[in-house]
């Protein structure tokens, strides 16, 4: 199937070299297979009858020429060159029967198959493009009549939502009755007045709690009465009108009028 000894090895190499001068690089090719297919076509024979050996030599010579011109070649071209060099050696060395490696003929057939397949796909592509294409040769309806879609809403609501909506509205409509809730707060001035009145002119130590007993029994007043009268008592101490004393921590706070402090 492969005729090694066939015709034009030298001639092919020569032609590749001249091609290389013309088109010095591989930029026009889509990869090594494309380049090989182009070279194979120049043999002007059926792809199944091309000389693979000649093709390999042509490719190797071409790559060699390019590299002499110091032109960068993409790696996959070099990979193909290596493979073809190996193929060439397999084709030229007689085969042993016990050889595990694929024979040169098998490798050549594989290359031929790949070239034929690529060419077949190129041919198929151009046959596809030569068909009557929609929008170029054959036309669809120019004025399609669109389907108009009317959307209806199916409303969703359940009884619970309905009742809740009703109740909420009716409640909103109920006139609100306001009763002002008065908060009891002792202002500082108020506390001071009360404290001054309670202490009066007493020079005896009396605990604060005792003075406030009447107020502290009322829970809503307890906190404000204590806090405000304590603050007021500090103010009175500062003014020198009252003396404070606490024997230990958390013991009752005792107070009395300061002797001679009352300048009023």
């Amino acid at each position, binding site marked *: 199937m492969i005729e090694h000894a066939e015709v034009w090895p030298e001639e092919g190499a020569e032609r590749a070299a001249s091609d290389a001068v013309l088109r010095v690089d591989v930029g026009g090719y889509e990869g090594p297979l494309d380049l090989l297919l182009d070279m194979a076509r120049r043999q002007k024979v059926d792809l199944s009858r091309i000389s693979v050996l000649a093709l390999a030599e042509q490719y190797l010579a071409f790559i060699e020429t390019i590299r002499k011109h110091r032109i960068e070649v993409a790696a996959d071209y070099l990979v193909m060159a290596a493979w073809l060099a190996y193929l060439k050696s397999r084709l030229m060395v007689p085969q042993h029967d016990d050889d595990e490696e694929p024979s040169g003929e098998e490798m050549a057939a594989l290359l031929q198959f790949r070239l034929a397949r690529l060419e077949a796909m190129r041919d198929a592509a151009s046959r596809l493009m030569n068909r009557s294409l929609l929008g170029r040769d054959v036309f669809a309806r120019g004025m399609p009549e669109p389907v108009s879609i009317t959307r209806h809403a199916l409303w969703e609501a359940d009884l619970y939502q309905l*009742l809740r909506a009703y109740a909420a509205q009716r409640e909103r409509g109920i006139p609100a009755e306001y009763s002002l809730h008065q908060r009891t707060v002792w202002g500082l001035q108020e506390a001071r007045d009360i404290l001054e009145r309670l202490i009066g002119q007493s020079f005896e130590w009396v605990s604060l709690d005792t003075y406030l007993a009447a107020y502290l029994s009322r829970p809503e007043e307890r906190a404000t009465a204590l806090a405000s009268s304590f603050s007021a008592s500090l103010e009175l101490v500062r003014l020198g009108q009252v003396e404070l004393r606490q024997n230990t921590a958390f013991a009752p706070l005792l107070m009395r009028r300061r002797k001679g402090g009352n300048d009023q």
Partner: protein
Amino acid sequence: MSRTLDDDRPEIEARNLRILEALIFASSEPVDLEDVRPFLSDDADPDILIDRLQAQYAGRGIELVQRGRRWAFRTAEDLNFLLRREESDTRPLSRAALETLAIIAYHQPATRAEIEEVRGVSISKGTLDVLMEAGWVRMRGRRRTPGRPVTYGTTEGFLDHFGLENLSDLPGLEELKGSGLLSSRVPSGFQVPMPFDGGLRDDEDPLDADDQGDADPEGEGDHTTHS
């Protein structure tokens, strides 16, 4: 010579018809016969051809129609329904619609002004339209008061959708309180009406056959429900 011409005639005409047909079909707008002439055989009469083509399509699912001086294929008019599809999608009812529906359900027959009084805000015509379109609310009649406002009520579809056998199944005051929907602290005078779903009441007139409902206040210049 002229014999041959006559023999060819039907063939030439068939060809002209095919060309005319294809050109009109593929064109993105109605086709002027003047624009077609260059594609036809020299002695062709586009007017005769178009008549013949129109006759060929008469009664088919598509027809050749004239639009001014131009021609186009259109779907036969009686098949237009094929080009209209109806699709439905479910959406939750807006709060305004839900509240309006609830008031109509309990207070029917209710006029728009009465609904607005309960809601405390005016309602748009659109809200009532949605409820009527949903098939839950209908115009019952007109109240025999100045302005003769439309009275609204619910429909069978309403009962159906909300799973009620009749309107008296709507929970009353005690049930609303019991279910916690109404707070228990409502004042003593507070009433939940018993919905009325009979025929027209004494103070209602029937609707006219072509009654269009209340005029839309938004459509009228100086008549607005609230300032």
